[in-house]
């Protein structure tokens, strides 16, 4: 689960990390008061207006503007609030900007990159730091991998002072900045663990002309498995940033991701769902979605699955591929029959059921009188659905 910059900064502040501070604004009428507050509280006469959306690349997309005075801050706020911001991480149509963070301006002496995430290979958290701040870290990793310092942290024992010093010295810091950065790294690690984050990224971490060390931007992603014990984090969820169909699907315990093709698919299990998408493509079709109905496929999940798939108007045919282990195929068949009758489907539906009670299920479907196309293997199913979609 992702959050906004202003929320991320609030969390960092709680952990005693110095941030580039500011005020959240969601209507233009509040801009003046926000600027007053920034002038007063942070003694800053210059400002930065920052669009609050989850996607990265906001600056390049025109969603972050330095404003040397109040007038330009107001103009920039007017331009950005309500704009549809397109970045390499948003959907192609872009994301509506509903909130701004107006911040103090900071005199940057040097920018650094700092992040913490899980290293799957070692099963340990890894701190990544680089002198190439403000850049896309993927680019640094590709061109100058030696410029990324990595420090692994032993679970249970946690981060040690020598490790924070190694990182800070490694970034070339000295004196007061070295001390400040070391402390900041330790605090950031504590924050990462205590909030069950899956990634925290401070890009850039800056050293100011005055010698301070602070977080100019911050991104978090949280481990969804741990949200049950992170009530405060869960409250930061912003559903406006998520695909409405995917949100709707998750309410029915369906895992749905919309894609660009015209062949809808409904499958049990993530791996088989991806495999089904792959074979649709190999047979000359384009999958319209990923949809995993999980281990509890029954009448309701099948019905909801159909509704969600068909809410995408590009869908020309639907493939249902269920391999029943715990899931009983006869129950799925009943779900399909009921859904097809009730929803008055206008697109062809190809059904492939295998595994537990598959024979009973096939009979149920054959005798139901509903118009479905039966298939007896994953290959047969893919060929039939692609033919149906292009017919």
């Amino acid at each position, binding site marked *: 689960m992702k959050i906004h910059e202003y929320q991320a900064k609030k969390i960092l502040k709680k952990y005693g990390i110095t941030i580039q501070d500011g005020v959240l604004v969601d209507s233009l009428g509040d801009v003046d008061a926000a600027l007053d507050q920034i002038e007063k509280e942070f003694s800053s006469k210059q400002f930065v207006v920052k669009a609050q959306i989850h996607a990265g690349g906001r600056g390049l997309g025109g969603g972050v503007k330095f404003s040397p005075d109040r007038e330009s801050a107001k103009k920039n706020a007017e331009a950005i609030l309500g704009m549809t911001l397109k970045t390499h*991480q948003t959907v192609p149509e872009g994301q509506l900007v509903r909130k701004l963070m107006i911040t103090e301006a900071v005199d940057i002496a040097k920018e650094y990159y700092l992040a913490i995430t*899980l290293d*799957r*290979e070692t*099963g*340990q*958290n890894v701190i990544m730091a680089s002198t190439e701040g403000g850049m896309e870290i*993927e680019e640094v*990793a*590709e061109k100058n991998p030696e410029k990324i310092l990595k420090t692994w942290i*032993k*679970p*249970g024992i946690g981060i040690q002072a020598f490790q924070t010093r190694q990182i800070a010295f490694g970034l070339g810091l000295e004196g007061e900045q070295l001390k400040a950065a070391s402390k900041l790294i330790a605090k950031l690690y504590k924050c990462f*663990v205590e909030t*069950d984050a*899956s990634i925290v990224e401070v890009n850039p971490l800056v050293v100011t002309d005055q010698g301070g060390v602070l977080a100019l931007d911050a991104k978090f992603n949280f*481990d*969804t*498995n*741990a949200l*049950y*014990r992170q009530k405060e984090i869960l409250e930061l969820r912003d559903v406006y940033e998520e695909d409405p169909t995917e949100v709707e699907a998750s309410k029915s315990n369906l*895992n749905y*991701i919309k*894609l660009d093709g015209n062949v809808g698919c409904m*499958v*049990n*299990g*993530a*791996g*088989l*769902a*991806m*495999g*089904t*998408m*792959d*074979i*649709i*493509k*190999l047979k000359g079709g384009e*999958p319209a979605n*990923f949809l*995993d109905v999980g281990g509890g496929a029954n009448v309701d999940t099948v019905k909801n699955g159909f509704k969600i798939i068909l809410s995408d108007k590009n869908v020309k045919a639907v493939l249902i591929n269920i*391999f*029943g*282990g*715990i899931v009983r195929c006869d129950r799925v068949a009943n779900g399909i029959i009921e859904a097809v009758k009730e929803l008055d489907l206008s697109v062809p539906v190809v059904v492939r059921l*295998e*595994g*537990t009670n598959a024979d009973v299920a096939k009979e149920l479907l054959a005798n139901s009188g509903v118009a479905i196309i039966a298939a007896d*293997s*994953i*290959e047969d199913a*893919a060929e039939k659905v692609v033919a149906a979609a292009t017919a």
Partner: protein
Amino acid sequence: MAILVNKDSKIIVQGITGTEGSFHAGQCLEYAGNVVGGVTPGKGGQTALDGKVPVFNTVQEARKEVGANVTLIFVPPPFAADAIMEAADAGIEVIVCITEGIPVDDMTKVFDFLKDKDSRLIGPNCPGLLTPDEAKVGIMPGFIAKKGRVGVISKSGTLTYEAVHQLVKEGLGQSTCVGIGGDPIIGTKMIDLLEMFENDSETDAIVMIGEIGGAMEIEAARYAKDHVTKPVIGFIAGQTAPPGRRMGHAGAIVSGADESAAAKMAIMRECGLHVVDSPAEIGKTVKAQLAVTA
């Protein structure tokens, strides 16, 4: 032989009195008869599965009383990490954790805890193990499999069933089927299982089913190049998955250049694995490769 579990395994189920735990424990008992007990803290002294097996308060007790050496975990996510560590501490040899949704931070601790233990963890968030006719330790439907000489390693549940189904249709049985799980941290990786199957005299060929995300398949392929003499047939699910979108499994997300299906398949091919583009080709390809090596 086979690997990890066989007819002599003494299986207990942690969480045996829960709905899922009792259902699947019953299925495993019915399949091969080697479920010897269960553990639910506070319910020691009772019996489960219609009085067929005893319930213990601790794994230690279960190990002592009924000689358990394999455990199957159905404990809910907040308590699952603890259950794994309890089993390892008690000296259980093979720990299979089915539980889905364990926080990653809990798993980093489990992973570290297991380092100086002799236990092998399979999973979490996996369908478990099946050695046809000998032992079912998990949720794979036993009836789809058949005893034979193909080892199956998979990150996915139902895609494993698909592969097993195709093998049986080609007249090929399995030595052991292993679902390793799709989480970011898992106890047993593909490379470990390649080694076990290579050393298993009852396995002639290996099916390895991976998916997008992580680097496990690449690590395994590089190992296979130098250390595995048996044919390895590979498939990577998610060729059509867009980068940056998590496809169901917590680990199934393309976040780096070499985590895409195309990149993994290319490296696997370079390492001499028989990689199929279509999930429908798994069974046929195994048969063809066995014919070549025979």
